[in-house]
């Protein structure tokens, strides 16, 4: 093996730790338990760290403190009834979860959405992405000592909440989509609101960038900390900004376009070193791209229907249910027995703020899934912690956790 290859191989923390391991194996070890209730674990993650002085020599990540049995519950209800549970997976971006789930069911049913529904869903996904990244950003900055950021980002999130409330009636448990479309059409004034928000948001983003990009404390605590190499990231199945921060440009919206994402003009930001700072920078840039997509979507919003028309399986419009016999019967059957899905199995992955949220649906026919597996991006992203943390000091832990930006509701399901 030539020398050059060796330097390349030890470029990332994982390899460096492995090399350092014999040196770390001296002295007395301290076992430190962090969580499940700790401010820097963003929920109920538990870490058991073995320390040699300040340096972590071994990490054991314990998840499952928010395991609520979503997959079991799904087997006991109809396809549409499960939509509210998807809200509570990644509770920072419920709209995007709704969209991913119903797209998966629609793939199983073999539906093609009308254009208006597709563009509406794109707006939903991108609003959710901005909102989730904002919270991730605020919490990350707070973890490394910048409290103000959190208040700034929440102000922007409240503006998004207002829009979502206008659209769905709830601040974040939206349950907006149904198999074959949405619960309702866009309310008047919504598109103008999105446009207005997008236009002012770019300026705010610049402001946020200025607060952190050149902040010595922030940069010192994130640069070259938690370096994940591109191959390691892919091997562990990382997705979303965590994978892209490591220099891999995999984005489901580009690789396997859905909802007409191929017709939008946007770029996929990619990091270089794969450290905490790169992941932060990727998220900042992704928000800019989301705003770009939002403006395009608002400009091209087509008219026409916003539900697939398939009376046997899709909820008919309410005004017809109240006046027509046929629709009333169909509505009763669809609500009580669920939309009749064909037997078969599909996997559908969508690019959510945290990464690729996938649904594996196994149907035996009828209105109830035989097995519904949620491929949660946070779960896969956290899998790397056991190998990533050793070699870092305890003070790096909040920065690494904040930059991985996980949601336990989704991780544990």
């Amino acid at each position, binding site marked *: 093996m030539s020398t050059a290859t060796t330097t390349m191989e030890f470029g990332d923390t994982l390899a460096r730790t492995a090399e350092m391991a014999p040196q770390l194996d001296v002295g007395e070890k301290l076992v430190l338990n962090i969580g499940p209730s700790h401010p820097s674990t963003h929920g109920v993650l538990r870490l058991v760290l073995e320390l040699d002085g300040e340096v972590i020599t071994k990490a054991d990540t314990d998840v*499952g403190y928010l395991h609520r049995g979503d997959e*079991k519950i799904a087997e*006991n209800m109809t396809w549409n*009834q499960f939509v509210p549970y998807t809200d509570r997976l990644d509770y920072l971006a419920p709209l995007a979860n709704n969209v991913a789930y119903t797209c998966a069911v629609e793939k199983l049913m073999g539906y093609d959405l009308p254009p208006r529904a597709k563009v509406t869903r794109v707006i939903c996904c991108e609003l959710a992405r901005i909102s989730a990244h904002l919270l991730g950003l605020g919490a990350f900055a707070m973890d490394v000592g910048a409290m103000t950021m959190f208040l700034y980002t929440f102000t922007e999130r409240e503006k998004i909440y207002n829009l979502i409330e206008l659209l769905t009636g709830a601040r974040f448990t939206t349950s907006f989509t149904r198999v074959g479309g949405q619960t309702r059409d866009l309310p008047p004034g919504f598109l103008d609101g999105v446009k207005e928000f997008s236009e002012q948001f770019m300026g705010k983003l610049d402001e946020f960038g200025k607060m952190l990009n050149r902040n010595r404390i922030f940069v010192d605590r994130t640069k070259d900390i938690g370096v994940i190499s591109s191959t390691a990231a892919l091997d562990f199945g990382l997705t979303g900004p965590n994978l892209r921060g490591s220099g891999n440009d995999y984005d489901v919206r580009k690789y396997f376009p859905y909802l007409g994402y191929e017709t939008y003009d946007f770029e996929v930001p990619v990091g270089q070193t794969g450290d905490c700072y790169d992941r932060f920078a990727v998220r900042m840039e992704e928000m800019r791209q989301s705003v770009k997509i939002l403006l395009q979507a608002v400009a091209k919003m087509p008219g026409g229907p916003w539900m697939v028309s398939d009376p046997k399986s899709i909820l008919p419009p309410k005004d017809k249910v109240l006046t027509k016999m046929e629709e009333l019967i169909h509505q009763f059957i669809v609500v*009580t027995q669920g939309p009749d899905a064909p037997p078969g199995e599909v*996997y559908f992955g969508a690019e959510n703020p945290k990464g690729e949220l996938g649904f594996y649906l196994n149907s035996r026919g009828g209105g109830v899934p*035989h097995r519904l597996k949620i*491929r949660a991006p946070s779960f*896969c992203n956290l899998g790397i912690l056991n*190998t990533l943390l050793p070699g870092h000091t305890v003070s790096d832990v909040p920065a690494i956790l904040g930059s991985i930006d996980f949601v336990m509701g989704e991780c544990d399901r």
Partner: protein
Amino acid sequence: MSEAAADSSADLVAAVKILPEFRGETSWEVPKERLVELMTALKKEGMTYLVDITAVDNQGEDPRFEVVYELCDLSSRKHLRVKTRAAEGEPVPSVCSVWKGADWHEREAWDMVGVKFSGHPDLRRILMWDGYPHHPLRKDFPLEGLPTEMPDIAFTAKAPLEGGPFVTSPAPFSHEREPRAHPAEERSL
């Protein structure tokens, strides 16, 4: 390629059963003895990204469990699903040696459905607590749970959603007729 290797790869291809395509998705089925061999070959072919591992309980069928691997080739932008079957108590070989990310997925499959993975470095429960006696995603496990060693807090009672979806049943009074979830045993009456 040596003759033995060519032989073994031809043999491997023969062992793979290609399932009918559904919604544009390709699925292969492979006997579990050849799983690791096939996965290693697939990774070499470009399937570098292991998307997900799912265990399915097909109670009443033989063999009972099905383990589903969702793979993705990022350069040619293709998905592939590989399935293998295992009876109760039979271990499936672990693919941790192929993808590191398989570690947690296999732990979850063991925790939730109770499929054992042979050769897994650290097969512990991941979502439920250590020492939990059941595998919740098995079909014979009720939604409301079964008694455990935490009797004070982990009690069981009838779950309102058990046996869903919401169904109507003929009854003289409207409050009994209205659609609601009925427990499975009540529905079969």
